[in-house]
């Protein structure tokens, strides 16, 4: 699969090439407890594919951070920063204008451990799985699904101020089936709602706020400290060892089906992308005790929820409330870039052909600039 295959370009192509630049993004983030067993199940199904010794890595949940986060992002401007190609023969993507959209995803931090003593050191790194992601713009959903290994669903997303000034209300409506009965037609249904009271400090809601990291950072001393640090992003990155997303390296399974045999894959790879949050500003916290987050555990939505929540075995048809442990909002500029195929899996073929060769590029991000000093690039054409 290493032979360059030309792509037939057209102005209407929905597959807009990366990297992307998103200035002035408003992010509302809500943290909740997640079951380590669920996360491990997710890792084993979608990331730890094949024999551990052959693939050379294993994904595990981050025991020190048993939280998932729901992020509501409002992108006023999305720009493809792809440099113009001589073969494009059309207006460069960067010169076509901007789109805007809303996006919601669930993010869970994972550790990818290299297998074996040497790889444990060089290949171990922190990455983020996005077990659920939806967007409001069709082109964004196509790019995510077909190019980046992100299973973006197309949704109607409400992302606005709630009842109180400076509060937040978010909701997602998705196409879904209200029940599993034969013949029931798909319809747009509410999947998730989140309501908050105003950002802290506020006289509305529960008093006094519980003292978690959120309320701690709201304190006068912490705010002084924040003000003294040149970049809030750097501070948060250092303070939380990268767990508050200022530079998220996402990992996803990108795969294409066989057209005639949809249970077979004709391409399968783990793809990582960097979402770098710069100029993080206006960081404000909500009182987590006054956040109401509720998923709709009905019909086909149950399949989504059971991936990352401890829902009952069967759909209840009722709202499933989730306790929030911290919640904040901020603004940032986001760059989405540095895509890598870290593991391309061999694909079995018919007609007596041998499987396509697999490949690996698993070096951890910290070791990547140094690896040239310690030997040749490895991992190409591994089985």
């Amino acid at each position, binding site marked *: 699969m290493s032979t360059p*295959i030309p*792509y037939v370009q057209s102005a209407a192509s929905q597959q807009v090439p990366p990297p992307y630049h998103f200035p002035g993004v408003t992010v509302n983030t809500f943290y909740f407890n997640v079951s380590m067993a669920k996360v491990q199940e997710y890792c084993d199904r979608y990331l730890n594919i094949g024999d551990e010794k052959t693939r050379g890595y294993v994904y595990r949940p981050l025991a020190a951070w048993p939280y998932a986060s729901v992020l509501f992002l409002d992108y006023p401007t999305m720009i493809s920063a792809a440099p113009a190609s001589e073969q494009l023969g059309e207006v460069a993507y960067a010169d*076509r204008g901007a789109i805007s959209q809303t996006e919601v995803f669930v993010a869970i931090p994972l550790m990818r451990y290299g297998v074996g003593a040497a790889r444990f050191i060089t290949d171990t790194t922190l990455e983020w799985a996005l077990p659920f992601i939806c967007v409001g713009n069709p082109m964004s959903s196509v790019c995510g699904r077909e190019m*980046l290994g992100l299973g973006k669903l197309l949704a109607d997303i409400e992302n606005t101020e709630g009842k109180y000034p400076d509060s937040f209300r978010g909701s997602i409506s998705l*196409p879904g089936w209200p029940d599993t009965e034969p013949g*029931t037609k798909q319809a747009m249904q509410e999947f998730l709602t989140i309501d908050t009271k105003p950002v802290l400090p506020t006289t509305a809601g529960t008093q006094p706020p519980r003292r978690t990291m959120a309320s701690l950072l709201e304190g006068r001393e912490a705010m002084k400290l924040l003000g003294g640090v040149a970049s809030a992003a750097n501070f948060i990155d250092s303070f939380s060892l990268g767990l508050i997303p200022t530079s998220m390296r996402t990992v996803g399974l990108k795969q294409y089906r066989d*057209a005639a045999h949809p249970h077979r894959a004709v391409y399968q790879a783990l793809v990582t992308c960097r979402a770098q949050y710069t100029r993080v500003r206006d960081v404000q916290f909500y009182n987590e005790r006054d956040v109401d987050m509720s998923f709709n555990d009905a019909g086909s939505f149950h399949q989504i929820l059971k991936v990352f929540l401890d829902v009952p075995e069967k759909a209840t048809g009722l709202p499933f409330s989730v306790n929030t442990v911290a919640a904040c909002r901020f603004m940032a500029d986001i760059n989405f870039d540095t895509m890598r195929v870290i593991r391309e899996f061999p694909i079995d073929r018919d007609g007596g052909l041998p499987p396509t060769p697999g490949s690996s590029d698993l070096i951890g991000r910290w070791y990547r600039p140094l690896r040239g000093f310690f030997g040749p690039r490895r991992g190409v054409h591994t089985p």
Partner: protein
Amino acid sequence: MTAFIDSFSTDQLLPPWYSADMRMWSFIVPVDRQLIEAHLKTRFNEPAPDQAPYFYTPLPGKTYGLLCVARHDTFSSIYEKKVGLDTVSHTELYWTFPVIRYRVNADNLRHDPQQVWIQPFAFDNSSYVMFSAREIWGTEMEMAAVSMEEGSTPGDLRIDMAIEGMAKFDPKARSQSIGCMRMGLKSTATKADLHALLESDDDLNAFVDILMGAGVFTGDFDHAAPGREPGMEVNTLRQFRDVFNMDCAAYRAIVASRTRHGNIRDLAFFSGEDTLVEFLLSDSMKETFQAMFGQRACHPHSQLPTKPPHLGAPGTPPTNWLLDHMPVEVALVISYTADARFDIIRTLHTYGQKT
């Protein structure tokens, strides 16, 4: 076998599909042979980098295509007799034309000609159908808002379609809901006598014969003309752009599928002279429409008497219909209700496969 790992985000309407009571409007539009040849060259006939063992040419004689709008009220996946979580309602719009596909042998000789259909563009108002079409059999379908209204008389027919896109490419431009296509019949339109229309036009007569042979509006799911498979075989270029090099594909293949119509009813024909079909030339769509229908004279406004609707999301700015309207000539209109079945046949060729 390498198993595809299913998840809720990829578990969309696996084929085969079955549509009960599909409502179809087909507009027969003459199309320039050279434009068909240009499309076939870039999508199917050029090496990429290896040569597919097929060669595609336009049909002999005057060339036509079908602009189809189909409303599927009950559209289901029947993959492995799936029951439940499998039915949607949606409306699609696509452009398709017949061509001849030859097999090419090792000596570069063409043989075994077969008529197949090509679908250069398609739109749908269901994200699940769009994901399935794009990701499984490769039609580069776009999400659209489609309004299809049929009244008590043929002249009440109005089909309006909008997409999210750019009216004008400009670094400061913003994407918005933009008009894409308008169709309708004139208020004076009445059902036409097919035989009378075809008697005066041998080329159109020949094309209608092709449609009848393919069972497009005479269909029976399992019966076909002698020596032919039932239904229409559609060949699609399935490609996914590489994230590292925008000029390259991570995967590229030719996929064959088959559409069959059965239980045809409410069949009616209308003269093309009673029809208005207009494409709106935004920068997002101009290239696609002109590649298929050529560069034609445009009107600044629609020639349809009714105002176009707002087709954007609630609370968004009005759909931008202030674009050049490019009318296309229609030879004949066919409308009917039918049941339809759609199957994938196989992947004909995968590019870049090393042996």
